[in-house]
């Protein structure tokens, strides 16, 4: 019997071992999906499984770091790394570059030119939160807010709308990437904002007589006490013949700040002007500046292509809840002719990343939308060329260490947004981003939902979905007061 076991064990070992063939060198690098050639990745990322785009026969992939090697045999052109071997391999590769060499057996073994993958010194936050929803139009069906452990492929639901009578849920937001401080909205059925903090769940009724709508686009104050929101009268329309397909626009909008301790909303005349559309507020990491987008009001929807949002800022005193008397303009849309959305400041306060497109504010539907960076220490603006593509590159968020940015891009098929993670050096140098890896390299081909609002979080959201749902459904909620 023991001989049989020994024989089986040897067979297993032989089956696992992959020998590198002598291949005729090819001049080109292989075309793989996802495109990992030249990307920079964190050492705590799940294995970058991939497939050859145009080859589905015998193939071998070899990842090398000096004399260390990690090998895997392709299955119909698809390569799946062993998670444990990958983990230890990447640990050893911190701050170094890996070489990925692919051998294909096409009338004899051939060897592609190697692909380089750089492993950054700095880790990425442990989790990514996002909403999964069909990329469209007015209706929705099943949706949810999910979290993905980035070191593995494990995805779990923070909450799904099957718990809350199939309502709409959106705009999840975290205070400084903290999974313990989160909020999101529910719409249509059980409309409210659910605020999760220090293990408690709060249901907020956010519509007041003095504000035009429920609270909409959020951004937490770093202290956790305040959350800036826009309030918007939003509409959606469809293009007759345009690559952008859908247009989302505001009829009017303002910016307000919600005080989580007093359940009060405050604002300023400079953020609540009748003739100006103000939206997408975001706090600086020191909590003393509120950035937002602002456009001259127009007749909508007729004038939708002539709405251009500037990037502005106003000072904020968290002790007195008061705003400054002056609005500064960082990007002047009147002069420069384009339109800013989604400003986000890096947690170290050094950079501000925003989306720039031809007009309007809902840049996720604008094919020309690209990411732009401001170095706040010098005030210089520059396009994030290393991250941008020919298609939409839009919503983005920073990692807690300011070295990684996750952003939504429609570059794969032009419709379904996918999360890309890009590295930024302390000097502001951007490196080629990579698509969030999945166990199955065909995962994105069959996924009929978009990744919406990808947000890094430092750990797992532990709140129980059922408890949140019961609170949403049974609780009366706290009515917010607008304070002049």
């Amino acid at each position: 019997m023991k001989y049989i076991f020994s024989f089986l064990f040897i067979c297993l070992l032989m089956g696992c071992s992959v020998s590198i063939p002598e291949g005729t060198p090819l001049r080109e690098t292989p075309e793989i999906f996802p495109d990992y050639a030249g990307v920079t990745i964190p050492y705590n990322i799940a294995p970058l499984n991939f497939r050859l785009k145009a080859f589905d026969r015998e193939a071998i992939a070899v990842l090398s770091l000096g004399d260390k090697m990690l090998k895997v045999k392709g299955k119909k052109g698809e390569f799946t790394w062993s998670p444990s071997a990958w983990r230890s391999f990447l640990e050893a590769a911190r701050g170094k570059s890996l070489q990925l060499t692919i051998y294909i057996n096409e009338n004899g073994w051939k060897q592609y030119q190697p692909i380089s993958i750089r492993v950054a010194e700095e880790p990425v936050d442990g989790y990514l939160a996002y909403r999964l929803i069909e990329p469209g139009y007015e209706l929705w069906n099943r949706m949810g807010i999910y979290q993905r452990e980035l070191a593995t492929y494990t995805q779990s639901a923070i909450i799904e709308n099957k718990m809350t009578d199939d309502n709409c849920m959106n705009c999840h937001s975290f205070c400084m990437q903290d999974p313990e401080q989160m909020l999101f909205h529910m719409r249509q059925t059980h409309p409210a904002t659910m605020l999760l903090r220090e293990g408690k769940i709060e249901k907020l009724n956010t519509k007041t007589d003095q504000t035009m709508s429920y609270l909409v686009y959020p951004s937490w104050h770093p202290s956790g006490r305040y959350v800036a929101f826009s309030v918007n009268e939003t509409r959606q329309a469809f293009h007759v013949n345009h690559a952008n397909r859908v247009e989302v626009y505001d009829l009017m909008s303002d910016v307000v700040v919600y005080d989580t301790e007093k359940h009060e909303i405050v604002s300023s005349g400079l953020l609540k002007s009748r003739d100006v559309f103000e939206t997408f507020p975001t706090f600086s990491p020191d909590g003393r500046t509120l950035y937002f987008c602002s456009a001259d009001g127009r007749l909508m929807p007729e004038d939708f292509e002539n709405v251009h949002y500037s990037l502005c800022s106003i000072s904020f005193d968290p002790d007195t809840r008061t705003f400054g008397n002056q609005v500064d303009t960082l990007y002047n849309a009147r002069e420069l002719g384009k339109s800013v959305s989604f400003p986000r400041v890096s947690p170290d306060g050094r950079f501000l990343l925003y989306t720039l497109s031809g007009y309007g504010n809902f840049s996720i539907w604008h094919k020309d939308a690209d990411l732009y960076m401001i170095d706040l220490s010098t005030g210089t603006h520059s396009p994030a060329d290393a991250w941008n593509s020919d298609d939409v590159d839009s919503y983005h968020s920073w990692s807690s260490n300011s070295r990684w940015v996750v952003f939504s891009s429609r570059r794969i098929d032009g419709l379904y947004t996918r999360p890309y993670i890009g590295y930024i050096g302390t000097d502001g140098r951007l490196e080629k981003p990579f698509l969030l890896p999945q166990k199955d390299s065909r995962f994105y081909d069959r996924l009929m939902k978009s990744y919406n609002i990808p947000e890094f979080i430092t750990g797992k959201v532990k709140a129980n979905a059922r408890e949140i749902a019961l609170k949403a459904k049974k609780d009366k909620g706290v009515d917010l007061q607008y304070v002049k």
Partner: protein
Amino acid sequence: MKYLTLLFWCTVYIVLFIYLQYASEFHFYFLEQNQLFQWSWPYLSEKLAMPGGFSFLLSEGLLQFFILPYAGAGIMAGLLTGIGAGTYFILCRIAPRVPWLFISLLPAIGLLFVFFNFNFHLQGTVSYLLILPVIYGIIGISGLRYRLIAEGLSVLLVWFLAGPVFVLTGAVFLLYELLKRDPGFYWSLLLGVEILLIGLLSVWYSVWGELNFAFLPDGYFNSRLKPDAIIYGSWVALAGLILLSCVFRNKDWCSGKRVWFGLGAQLLIIGGVLYGGLPKYRDAKSDKLKKLDYYSRTGQWDEILEDCKGSMTNYLYMCYTNMALAQKGQLGDRMFSYDQRGVPGLIVNWNQTMSISVLLSDLFYTMGDVASAQRMAFEAGVGEIGEGNPRMLKRLVETNLIYGAYPVAEKYIAILENTPQYKTWASGQRKFLYNEEAVNQDPVLGFKRRGLPVRNTLIQMDGVLNDLYSLAESYPENRAPIEYAGAIYLLGKDLPEFGKMVEKYYGTPVLPVLPLSFQEAVIILWEGKPEEWERFGISQPLKERFASYKSQILANKGNTSALPGLMRRSFGDTYWYYYMFK
């Protein structure tokens, strides 16, 4: 006896098949679009990993064949016969000396009633069928201890494989044990605890969103809607029959007059249930709509027109009729040959349901409004109660090919290639990918592409009519937009605006000649100005017909009550009649 039983169930199958084919042929075709069964391991494994995933996959796998003639009736009759026979064998195992033949059809009849409601998923029926052999096998175990263990394990297994029907399984076991009262039977109460625990934990850990989805057949119903009480009928029926069989388990009703009395009573009950239930639950009023939907899906425009002759009281039927006319290029000429009752009969309002989204997608596609057709196809897919809508996915492929959005069209093609029913069609579309020439030369795709508006706007920013004008001006060869625009004015009896339209477009490539109904409208718009008739090329026979119309009106003007009927006989197919009497 064995052969008689077999004969009985064969007869049940045949009767059910004939009835379902007769009563529900188009219901089957309609149901088929509620699935997107993909024969690929990632899809299968993802579903299998979910509680209830196994029965879900089985039901999707069966549902995909409903598009084939006779397949739906054959499958559904098989499922229901299986449920009837399964129930029969269980009852016979508990009380073998009772002739259970007819009454064991009760659960199947309950499921037949809910089958007519398209919001009830086929998974509910498949899951029901799955538990019957499990119950049959386990109640045959003689030792209580082993039986209880098997019951406990099977409840868990059923939960995982078939979803909420685990509650019914557990309830049947519990009932059986409590009534059988073997020594130590009280241990069976643990089954109740198990059911509660599984259900509550399933909700706590978000397997199902609410307690009713975990514990009741609501889990097999459209979660956005509240089901009728009939959904519980099959569950209550099985529990009731188990109760009955336990009560009668030591009785002998298989000899003498009792057999006939028993069977007669059962037949009476079943007959009564069918007599009362079928008219109530069959949803016969939606038959015609489903038929028209199928004809529209398969491009059988003549059948639609044939089916919509005579009086119609439903705007949706009129939408299909007018769409069929537009498809045949006859909307402007023949629309009043069919019953018309206003603008909603041309374009029905969107109510956000899947079926209206599908209709509107077809309608806009007919008009050449590709953007709206795509939007409605997308909404239909999203609003779908199943995993997707293959019919609308095809539309998304087509519309994206028309726009040249090849990567996303390729994504949808790849998904459809995983479906056994649509694989061939999907693969056939690959020739259009990244091939402008192939798209341009295709009679449908090329035609629609040439019809895309040259100037982009937002849909309905300036009203639907301006969108139609824009389509008509961009590609005058497409007659549908201008004929729909004119038809909107005619059905709305807005002759001044109609006049402006023909003034603007008559004689241009958009409207080189006026269709018959438009000519009729021109005649009454400029009734006192025959020179205008000449300008719009009104034909001599039409002028004569109008003269005849007028003279008949004048001759019968005192007879106001009979006038509409009289005029309808001779002029019911004219715009004049519609304008004056409708």
